[in-house]
């Protein structure tokens, strides 16, 4: 008997890929457009007058009019939207109403801190969450399983900023095991190189300044653990769910019938088969850390993206807020796209 002869020749397979890529690109472009429209609308809904925000209350009539025209506010709405899109295409998100500098520059300044925190948090969360999820599924309904489930339940039922507050008061104020708010002690801050990467862990390590490095670690520990705890809760729960589904499949029985050990069956067969799903979950958690980070960063006085967003919000700096929202939206969409691509690449059944 021969194998099923595939009607797809190499040529038409490429054509299928191309078509799929095009439709995906179109879909993303549309979503991005909608994103821009949404942020534009939010910007327009403001009760704040952007002219007043720049010039202050006491501006004269002519100055007001001049600024009004300069900002293009006299044009009809669709032209304003068009200009908005054009600016976006030029990577111009406007200027911050509080500092006057370009929004993109401000975001670029604060972003590394966010990435550093998010990365350390996800390493902790995924590194702990994934094996816990697997073990939990292996020994289903045992004590280990129940402990893991309860812990992760608490992990995503608790408000993270509250965990941050309690963590600070217990581990910093009372026990003094870790350092408090901020990324690094003031004493070390002046020793940092001007043009570093922005990633303090890397900068201090590269400079060989281990005292400063230790200080950075001590500052990043608590916020990273707390953020990571939330991620760990989600990741372990999802991993457990995926693994339970796999472990009930027939091919697991086959593997055991071959004489494979339980460990190999679970890790080499079942876990490999959920690999893509787990990576997707981790990627999404990474994106969500941006959200949880907004509040945790406020608690820990972390000078980064979330704080920039919140401060802009409270100051009424809408160009910054709109710019930030747009960036976040783009990040989310990109991460989703990467996950879809991963599925395509790693699962032979989709090819």
């Amino acid at each position, binding site marked *: 008997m021969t194998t099923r002869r595939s009607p797809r020749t190499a040529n038409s397979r490429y054509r299928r890929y191309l078509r799929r890529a095009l439709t995906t690109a179109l879909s993303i472009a549309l979503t991005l457009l909608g994103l821009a429209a949404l942020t534009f609308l939010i910007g327009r809904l403001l009760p704040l007058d952007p002219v007043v925000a720049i010039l202050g209350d006491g501006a004269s009539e002519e100055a007001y009019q001049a600024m009004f025209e300069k900002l293009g506010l006299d044009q009809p709405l669709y032209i304003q939207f068009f200009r908005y899109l054009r600016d976006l295409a030029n990577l111009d998100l406007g200027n911050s109403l509080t500092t006057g500098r370009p929004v993109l520059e401000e975001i670029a300044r604060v972003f590394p801190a966010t990435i550093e925190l998010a990365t350390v948090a996800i390493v902790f969360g995924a590194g702990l969450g994934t094996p816990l999820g697997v073990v939990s599924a292996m020994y289903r309904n045992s004590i280990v399983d129940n402990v893991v489930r309860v812990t992760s339940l608490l992990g995503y039922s608790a408000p993270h900023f509250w965990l941050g507050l309690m963590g600070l008061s217990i581990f910093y104020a009372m026990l003094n095991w870790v350092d408090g708010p901020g990324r690094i002690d003031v004493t070390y801050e002046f020793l940092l190189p001007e043009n570093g990467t922005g990633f303090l862990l890397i900068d201090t390590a590269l400079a060989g300044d281990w005292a400063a490095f230790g200080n950075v670690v001590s500052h990043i520990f608590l916020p990273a653990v707390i953020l990571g705890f939330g991620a760990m809760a989600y990741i372990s729960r999802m991993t457990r769910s995926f693994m339970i589904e796999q472990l009930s499949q027939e091919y697991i*029985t086959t593997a055991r*019938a071959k004489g494979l050990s339980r460990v190999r069956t679970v890790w080499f067969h079942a876990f490999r088969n959920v690999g893509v799903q787990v990576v997707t979950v981790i990627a999404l958690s990474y994106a969500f850390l941006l959200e949880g980070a907004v509040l945790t960063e406020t608690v820990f006085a972390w000078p980064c993206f979330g704080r920039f967003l919140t401060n802009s919000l409270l100051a009424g700096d809408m160009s910054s807020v709109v710019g930030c929202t747009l960036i976040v939206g783009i990040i989310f969409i990109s991460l989703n796209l990467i996950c879809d691509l991963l599925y395509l690449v790693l699962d032979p059944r989709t090819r």
Partner: protein
Amino acid sequence: MDKPLLTIEDLHLVFGQGQNAVHAVRGVSFNVGREKVGIVGESGSGKSQTGRAIMRLSPSTVNIVAKKMDFDGIPLLQQTERQMRQIRGNRISMILQDPKFSLNPLMRIGDQVVEAYRVHHKVSRREARARALKMLDAVRIRDCERVFNLYPHEVSGGMGQRVMIAMMLIPEPDMIIADEPTSALDVSVRKQVLSVLDELLRQRGTALIFISHDLNLVAEFCDRVLVMYAGRVVEDIAARDLHKAIHPYTRGLLDSLPKLDQPRDVLSTLQRDPIWRDAPTIFHPREVR
């Protein structure tokens, strides 16, 4: 017949505990030598569970008790998990029903066959690969090199099942348990898969336990037939003597099968008698040769 390979005496399988306990297998006893034994029964008769219990692959909620469950002198119920791992694949193997589900979908066919061999024999990867290719050839797969690199979803059901056979026979076990090996295949493919299996079993002198719901199929293929009903063996008879079966359930099964050479207007339906649940096995002794 010389000493039997597998001896089972009074096997009981209970799922769960207390009020919700399900007594799936209730006192099953039989022997298997170097022959082909078929176990026939409807859904819920306990036939699949018996097969898995032999390999100690039952779900964790199951309680297995037997007076005796010996394989080649080894008491299977007393073996530790590590000892069972030496037996599984190496001495007793199992073929499952549907290759769509019973093969790892994300692993190449060749790698899965190689794994089956390397678990029990420490050889180089190259040698294991050569053996796997030879085995794929033995199950009559043409173009072994190409199939070696395919994924399970890229081959047909019949080929997938032959891959399964190759995978389970490559470590050269003494006995194979086939759990509904052809039930998921098209009728036209069944005969081919079975003939491949038959040839390999004969070449190596491997024993077979063939679990199925299809009495016709089992009667043609096997030497001996065990009919199971409600967790018990109701009749144990040689395949060629099946027409001489005594138990009303067996007779009912036989009568409900249409035959081309004996046309009937109305097929009889099985009338179940509650007595069957607890009746002793009707054992037809093997003929002395």
